[in-house]
């Protein structure tokens, strides 16, 4: 072991980084961006889930519960009619509502059991849990006064169901994400290799048109991506039994669109990297913020205000939303929300295809 030889390697490494400012910037910039984003997401004081309170109780208990709920900080509760609550639940504006029937006080007196109806939207397990917890807390606060009363809510779901779990929620989003991510990485590296080994130069000195190169790449990788998409989908549905209420064909089409977008995003971004090393750096810069902000992990409705604007600009948001609309809510193309999701993903595909062709440096034919 020679200290000098070891030092030579260490010194050489640091010298290389000095010539690669971009990697240095990433090394010291990316953690701050990612952690800062995460911190803002979690502590930025985003909106809490919206819930409705439908109080039909003839007795005093319903009113007490309602005001108790409205004081809670974990949810934003407001009293409304059942018709309005049901409508807002269906549209997704409410994460859930609690129904206090007309004989609520009376039954609580007689049977010592409190059983309000909790109606949940259900597509986001985290929000559902918050609502149930809030209702339970409101009762707990009153239970001291009533004494020895048991809490047995009757929970119903618009989407999903009691067995709907976190995997069902994440699974829908990840089916799309896995394909998008892997195809992106493979394309960007393949395209950089094409440049690095000099074959792109040869292609450029041939009668090939830019559009032909991009289209050829797109078809090649899309074939691979589609096989992968089928595999991922089959594994999720048949082995993991991820909840699916929608049309498998529709899921596949959305996956395919994401794959096409990923291929072209890869081609486009490869123009901004000199080496495969730099290409890999696009992962924390392009993928991580999208994963944090696209609603995969944190529901967009609960993000701090400024971030929701950003989320609404990211195409992955719509892809994830589309996947969940299909798989969790059983949406079809007649739904306007799914039309929006498909429209945005499709639009993004077209945009990156054009961007890829335009940035593929070449003389004007």
């Amino acid at each position, binding site marked *: 072991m020679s200290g000098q030889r070891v030092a030579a390697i260490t010194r050489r490494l640091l010298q290389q980084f000095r010539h690669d400012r971009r990697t240095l910037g990433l090394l010291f910039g990316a953690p701050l961006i990612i952690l800062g984003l995460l911190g803002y997401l979690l502590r930025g004081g985003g909106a809490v889930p919206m819930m409705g309170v439908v109080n039909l109780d003839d007795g005093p208990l319903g009113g007490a519960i309602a005001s108790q709920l409205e004081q809670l900080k974990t949810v934003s509760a407001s009293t409304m009619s059942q018709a309005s609550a049901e409508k807002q639940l269906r549209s997704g504006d409410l994460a859930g509502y609690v129904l206090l029937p007309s004989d609520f006080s009376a039954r609580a007196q007689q049977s010592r059991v409190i059983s309000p109806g909790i109606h949940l939207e259900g597509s986001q397990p985290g929000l559902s849990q918050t609502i149930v917890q809030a209702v339970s807390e409101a009762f707990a606060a009153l239970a001291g006064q009533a004494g020895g009363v048991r809490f047995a809510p009757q929970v119903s779901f618009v989407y999903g169901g009691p067995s709907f779990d976190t995997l069902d929620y994440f699974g829908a989003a990840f089916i799309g994400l896995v394909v998008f991510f892997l195809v992106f990485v493979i394309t960007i590296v393949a395209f950089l290799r094409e440049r690095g*080994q*000099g*074959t792109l*130069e040869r*292609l450029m*000195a041939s009668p090939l048109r830019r559009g032909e190169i991009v289209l050829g790449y797109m078809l090649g990788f899309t074939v691979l991506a589609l096989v992968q998409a089928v595999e991922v989908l089959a594994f999720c549905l048949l082995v993991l039994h991820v909840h699916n209420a929608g049309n498998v064909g529709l899921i596949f089409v959305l996956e395919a669109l994401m794959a096409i977008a990923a291929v072209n995003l890869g081609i486009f971004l490869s123009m901004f990297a000199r080496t495969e090393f730099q290409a890999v750096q696009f992962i924390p810069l392009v993928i991580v913020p999208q994963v944090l902000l696209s609603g995969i992990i944190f529901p967009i409705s609960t993000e701090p205000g400024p971030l929701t604007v950003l989320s609404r600009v990211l195409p992955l948001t719509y892809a994830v939303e589309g996947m969940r609309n299909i798989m969790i809510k059983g949406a079809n193309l007649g739904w306007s929300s799914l039309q929006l999701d498909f429209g945005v993903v499709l639009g993004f595909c077209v945009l990156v295809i054009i961007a890829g062709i335009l940035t593929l440096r070449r003389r*004007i034919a």
Partner: protein
Amino acid sequence: MAGETYAVEAEAVVKRFGSLRALDGVALRIRRGEVYGLLGPNGAGKTTLIRALVGLVVPEGGTVSVLGRRMPNLDVLAQVGYMTQQAALYSDLSAEENVRFFAAINGVHDGVREALELVDLWDRRESLISSLSGGMRTRCSLACALVHKPDLLLLDEPTVGVDPLLRVQLWDRFQRMARDGTSILVSSHVMDEAERCDRLGLIRFGRMLAEGTVPELKGKAGVDRLEDAFVKLSEAATS
């Protein structure tokens, strides 16, 4: 028609990279069916000039015509074979797959065997490029450049790293192809290769210092060796 006489006509081509004048008003004329040697030291502008011929470099000034067509022109490139300095091949494809691919992008589907036999690689056609030696890769790269039987072959230092025996074979082939009507541009900084060219261009600092046959250049400089001629002509042009 001028386009019938010359395979390549470049006039007053200028290209700068930042403050560096890679091409400083260079002119080049290659006649049909000749082997033209582009000679010059490293960094003289040889590669930039060749890249300008195929449209990879867009000149800031001057004109470039290839096979009678003003560049840039994509369609004429189907009649041009371009061999880059580095053996630009797909290392995870076999030799035959590489040649077949470059044939296909030029709209040709046969001649693969012929091209591989020409460079003595038919027996190794199934080998992946990554398993071939440097000299074999160079030969495969050449096969890729000529598989579509181009009218103009641009070879950027094709014999670098090639052993002497193979070098002689390659030059025999270049000359035979020229006799069959192919115009060939070979760049080199090796003087003894230059003796085998029909005409030579001496390039330095992005300018054409002198042009002519080997005897003409020697006569112009008044020396017997081409190397000396190059040094003398180079000094005369820069002083």
